[in-house]
């Protein structure tokens, strides 16, 4: 075992442009997209035929046949077939969690290099057999005699032909994620206009980053797409103001299809390594993954918002690293919904919340909004659940690298199930 730990380097990343659901990638499977993304990373860093220490990636919406999705993607890619791989799933935190897992193994000296990634499709989504039908067919399969089989088959009803379609809803509450977010938005009194302003900034920042070529070495075109399909460079607060709310009820409803992320298809991957491995391979080090933290909240019975867990994870991470919320040059707060970002920031500013919920003597305080999601985030790019972490890690690492050595960035990602994953990167 290594006598001491080291910080894992982020060498670079690759993703395919994110497509709107049933858009450009309507026919692509998770495996197609993850394989293409890995191959793009391989091409970018000259890894053809090479063995990487490990590949960790995952998908949130996964077919049963894709139980070994990441390994299967590696086998179909140009990486050496001797590269081990495993699947990770932590809802929207999957991509960042995968990066943390790979970084930790590098930190411990168990790996010299690794790839973290994620992929999701809402177009080629799995459908399950109707639960009643599934039970009938299991009984048929287990039947030993013709008579048993026939009697089991007699249990079939026409209504059982309707399959179970995956829904973006919490199993325990039956509420869509947007419904949950709308409750939090109302509790924190997040206004429509500030949500729309944040959304416009996301689109404008992402468009500007594309225009100046920032994504040239982070994105590889796929199936005819060269930019994220959801990106609206010319959107404005006036245009967004025309949209009708889709989540929340009555007068107080503020969340629209504009200031909520759309269903999206896409994949991302990040190459991590020890500094030595990067140097041996003549590859750059954009930044290091310094530390990470997860948290979870009881959104079912505990009165906390579904997407508020990052609010809890960040103070723990800051304390362990002797930092304040203001000690960062860039913040990447995943825009599940514009209201989620704003509620989280407001929570950190609230003395009551920080004292009562987070157990802090003083609030974390506010952040300089000019440092927030400077190259756009999920509202503009879209959010293929498991692919978002890889998008953010690579984008922030490059942002820090461009800003020069010694710069620090904070990543905060909320996830279904009331969870959150946060991390610190440093150039």
């Amino acid at each position: 075992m290594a006598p001491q730990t080291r910080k894992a380097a982020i060498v670079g990343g690759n993703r395919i442009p994110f497509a709107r659901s049933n858009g450009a990638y309507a026919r692509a499977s998770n495996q197609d997209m993850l394989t293409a993304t890995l191959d793009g990373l391989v091409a970018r860093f000259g890894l053809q035929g090479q063995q990487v220490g490990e590949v960790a990636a995952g998908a949130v919406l996964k077919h049963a046949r894709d139980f070994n999705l990441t390994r299967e993607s590696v086998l179909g890619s140009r990486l050496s077939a001797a590269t081990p791989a495993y699947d990770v799933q932590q809802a929207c935190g999957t991509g960042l969690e995968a990066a943390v897992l790979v970084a930790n193994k590098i930190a411990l000296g168990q790996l010299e290099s690794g790839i973290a990634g994620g992929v999701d499709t809402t177009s080629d989504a799995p459908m399950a057999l109707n639960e009643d039908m599934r039970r009938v067919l299991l009984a048929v399969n287990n039947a030993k005699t013709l008579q048993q089989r026939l009697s089991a088959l007699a249990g079939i009803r026409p209504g059982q032909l309707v399959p179970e379609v995956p829904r973006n809803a919490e199993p325990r509450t039956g509420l869509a994620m947007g419904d949950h977010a709308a409750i939090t938005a109302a509790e924190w009194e997040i206004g429509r206009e500030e949500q729309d302003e944040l959304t416009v900034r996301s689109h404008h920042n992402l468009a500007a980053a594309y225009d100046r070529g920032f994504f040239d070495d982070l994105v590889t075109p796929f199936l005819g797409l060269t930019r994220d399909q959801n990106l609206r460079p010319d959107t404005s607060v006036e245009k967004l103001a025309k949209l009708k709310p889709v989540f929340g009820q009555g007068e107080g409803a503020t969340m629209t299809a504009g200031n909520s992320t759309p269903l999206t298809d896409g994949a991302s991957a990040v190459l991590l390594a020890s500094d030595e491995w990067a140097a041996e391979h003549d590859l750059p080090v954009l930044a290091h993954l310094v530390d990470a933290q997860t948290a979870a909240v009881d959104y079912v019975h505990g009165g906390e918002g579904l997407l508020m867990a990052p609010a809890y994870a960040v103070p723990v991470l800051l304390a362990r690293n002797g930092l304040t919320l203001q000690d960062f040059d860039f913040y990447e707060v995943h825009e599940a919904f514009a209201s989620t970002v704003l509620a989280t920031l407001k929570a950190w500013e609230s003395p009551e919340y920080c004292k009562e919920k987070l157990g802090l003597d003083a609030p974390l305080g506010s952040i300089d909004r000019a440092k927030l999601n400077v190259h756009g985030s999920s509202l503009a790019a879209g959010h293929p659940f498991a692919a978002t972490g890889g998008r953010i890690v690579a984008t922030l690492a490059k942002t820090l690298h461009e800003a020069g050595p010694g710069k620090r960035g904070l990543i905060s990602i909320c996830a279904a199930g009331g969870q959150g994953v946060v991390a610190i990167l440093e150039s």
Partner: protein
Amino acid sequence: MTRTVLDAPPAMPALFARAALTARGRGGDLPDTRLARVGVEVDPAHLADYARVCRFPLADSLPVTYPHLLAFPLQVALMTDRAFPLALPGLVHVRNRIEQLAPIGTGSALDVEVWAERFATHRSGATVDLVASVRSGGDEVWRGRSTYLARGASAPEGAPEADVEVPVGEVERVSARWRVPDDAGRRYAKVSGDVNPIHLSGLTAKAFGFKRAIAHGMWVKARGLAALSGRLPDAVSVDVGFRKPLFLPSTVALATSPVDGGWDWAVRGEKSGVEHVVGVVRPV
């Protein structure tokens, strides 16, 4: 030489019907004719269908065998023309060679040209090569050569000897088992347009002397290459020999062996060991 540019791919069912009706009374040498299409764009939905049937990943470049689908209807049109000396029914695809000189992007506009050449003498008849050349932006990116055997036919005086032997080495190590279902021919017919009745059902196959429907050779070739996804050179030649028919349904074994930066491979009956397809993949 006459070169005809077609605006659209010819309708294959009509061509197969015409081929059956005009089978008699053919002869002479190969026509000096070329058929072409220019600026062909790949339909993404069709590409996705093809990829699923052959198990290729959906990626940003075309599967090595995909351009054959663009050339094949033109080749059938050439073969069903009255000037073609051999009758299409009864022609057996015995060898297929592809050279991909560079990966072909799915968004490329492709110029496709086909012709027939190398009328050759074979111990049990005559062979002819249907050739295809595919260009992108003026550069040739893909070449295909399908060798067909016409049993009992004779090549013109002075014709060369047929060239049907694929130089494949020993391939013993089984790397995959495929259960090929009885609708494999219908599924491939749907995406390839190759509606030759011998592939479609037992009944239609019997009418042409086969005991059951048989798999398309080009499907077996494609599936073999799909199994090597991620392990093929960008510039690659794939030479495949079609040996014994693969009757549907069947369980077959794919054997592969790395050779000279490429692969030798074979598809055989899992139990019978009957050799259906052998292949040689090499970097070019």
